């Protein structure tokens, strides 16, 4: 039976997140956290494989105790096992330290065939963790996977590589990062949701990883990227000009301005 690992992250609902001029974020309607939406595509793919071939699907998250809730939610969505990595020592991790912790957990979990990650998270938004984990585990990875064509002895996937789509065949183990286009994540049924509340989430702390990892590489001390400051993107310099009047007047004024600013030169003169 295939052993699949899916990484999930608890994130805030960014549509509720407002930043002040100093870049300090506040949640308007704090609802706790949700699963990073990109991770739902990763989980859905794993569960589809489980439904087709039979597989164990272990969801793993690094986060605070509250992240147990999203792991229980993954059970409702079809995961078979869960693991929370929770420790003060993990705090302040950059992507390199995070990937190191997650890769260490994979080593500790033992044999696996497939790791699936979402393309990126809506908060950190780096899209780097998957490839970093693969490098720590010394296994191949395929990024931007938009379709699973076949899975059996080997895996065949379509990877969107900039302007090309590559259909790639590979063996196991392998790590995939999937795009939002790969599937539409299912909604858990009410019954599955209720049942999942009773699920037990396995929790590991830093000490649980000591046989496979160097604790000095965890958290802030293991991180090499420091955020100096957070600023709001400047919208300064935008003209913010309202064009009013009849449609004829509007388009005339607009094209006058574009012509005056030399922006029309390229236009039409292909």
């Amino acid at each position: 039976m295939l052993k699949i690992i899916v990484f999930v992250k608890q994130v805030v609902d960014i549509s509720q997140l407002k930043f002040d001029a100093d870049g300090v974020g506040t949640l308007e309607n704090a609802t706790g956290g949700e699963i990073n939406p990109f991770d739902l595509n990763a989980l859905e793919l794993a569960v589809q494989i489980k439904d087709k071939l039979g597989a164990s699907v272990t969801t793993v998250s690094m986060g605070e105790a509250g992240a147990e809730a999203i792991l229980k939610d993954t059970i409702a969505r079809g995961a078979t096992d869960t693991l929370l990595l929770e420790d003060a020592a993990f705090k302040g991790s950059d992507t390199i330290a995070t990937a190191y912790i997650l890769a260490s957990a994979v080593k500790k979990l033992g044999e696996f065939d497939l790791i699936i990650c979402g393309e990126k998270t809506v908060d950190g938004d780096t899209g780097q963790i998957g490839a970093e984990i693969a490098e720590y585990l010394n296994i191949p990875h395929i990024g931007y996977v938009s379709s699973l064509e076949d899975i059996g002895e080997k895996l065949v996937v379509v990877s969107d590589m900039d302007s090309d789509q590559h259909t790639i065949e590979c063996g196991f183990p392998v790590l995939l990062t999937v795009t939002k286009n790969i599937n539409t994540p299912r909604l858990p049924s009410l019954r599955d949701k209720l049942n999942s509340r009773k699920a037990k989430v396995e929790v590991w702390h830093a000490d649980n990883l000591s046989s496979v990892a160097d604790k000095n590489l965890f958290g802030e001390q293991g991180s090499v990227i420091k955020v100096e400051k957070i600023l709001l993107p400047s919208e300064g310099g935008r003209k913010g000009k309202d064009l009013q009047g009849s449609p004829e007047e509007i388009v005339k004024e607009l094209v006058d301005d574009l012509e005056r600013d030399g922006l029309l030169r390229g236009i039409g003169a292909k």
Partner: protein
Amino acid sequence: MTEQNDVIVVAEQHEDKIQSVTYELLGKGKEIAEKTSTKLCVVLLGGNIEEEAQELIYYGADKVFVFQHPSLKDFDTLNYKNNIVSLAKELKPGVMLIAASHKGRSLAPRLAVALETGVSADCIGLDMDSDGNLIQVRPAFSGSVLAHMKTKTKPVITTVRYKTMQSIKRDTSRKGEIVNRKASIVPSPLTTIKKQKLGEINISEADIIVTGGRGLKDSKDFAILAELSEACGGVIGSSRPLVDDGWIGKEHQVGFSGNTVKPKIYIACGISGSSQHLAGMRGSDIIIAINTDPSAPIFKIADYRIVGDLYEIVPKLVNEIKGRTS
């Protein structure tokens, strides 16, 4: 002798042709190299790519390291990584700049782990501070904020978004050194069994983009926008819902989960401007927004605000532009 702290640009090539983002990286790389009194090196990997090396010198490279092998024509994470890592271990660069393309973003995290350093993703600004640290500026929270970051270790590796840096002028009198290196190739665990174009258009590179959103009533109405984009010599973009509904291909999608664009002119037609959409087009030079709803968020970042019906405005705009340019 080691050449500590040089800047290395990883050239982006497609089908053995250098992509324009590489020249943008060279422009920024040259600035960093000058400020730190180091050399600007380029690593160029490809199948039959030697002839392209000279171009990199015309665009500012001091030294080009060429790894040529049939297996390197197409991007292959493992073999690209292995060759770049061995070069980086030898040169001990201070900074490595890589395009924030899918290829670059697959490669850079693996390079960072292999070289025991950090990597910042998708930067839109790079500058040296007074202590000689490279400040890396990148959007986070789906483009809501900009994070300014430093890396404690070397090399500082960063992937850089298209069209955020300026290339310098091509100058055929520039001199530089081309060094051919023997590529080390291992059998790849991945086999590419088919390759096809995702779409004819490359929206990330377009100078003018006309984008349609929920204000369009029917998929056929993209034809109205196509007239405008043709009149301007631009390309068609779309917001995500229309792509999800199958009205137009994914290659047209602008936004956080689609393409990030930075055209000279962005014309948003019937787009309200979700934060995900804004994250993908906020860097446009001039934003023109047409929407019937005056409270649409797109207006907050627009240079020209037109509260009106795109079905009325767009055809008139086409006529006006055609009238001036014919």
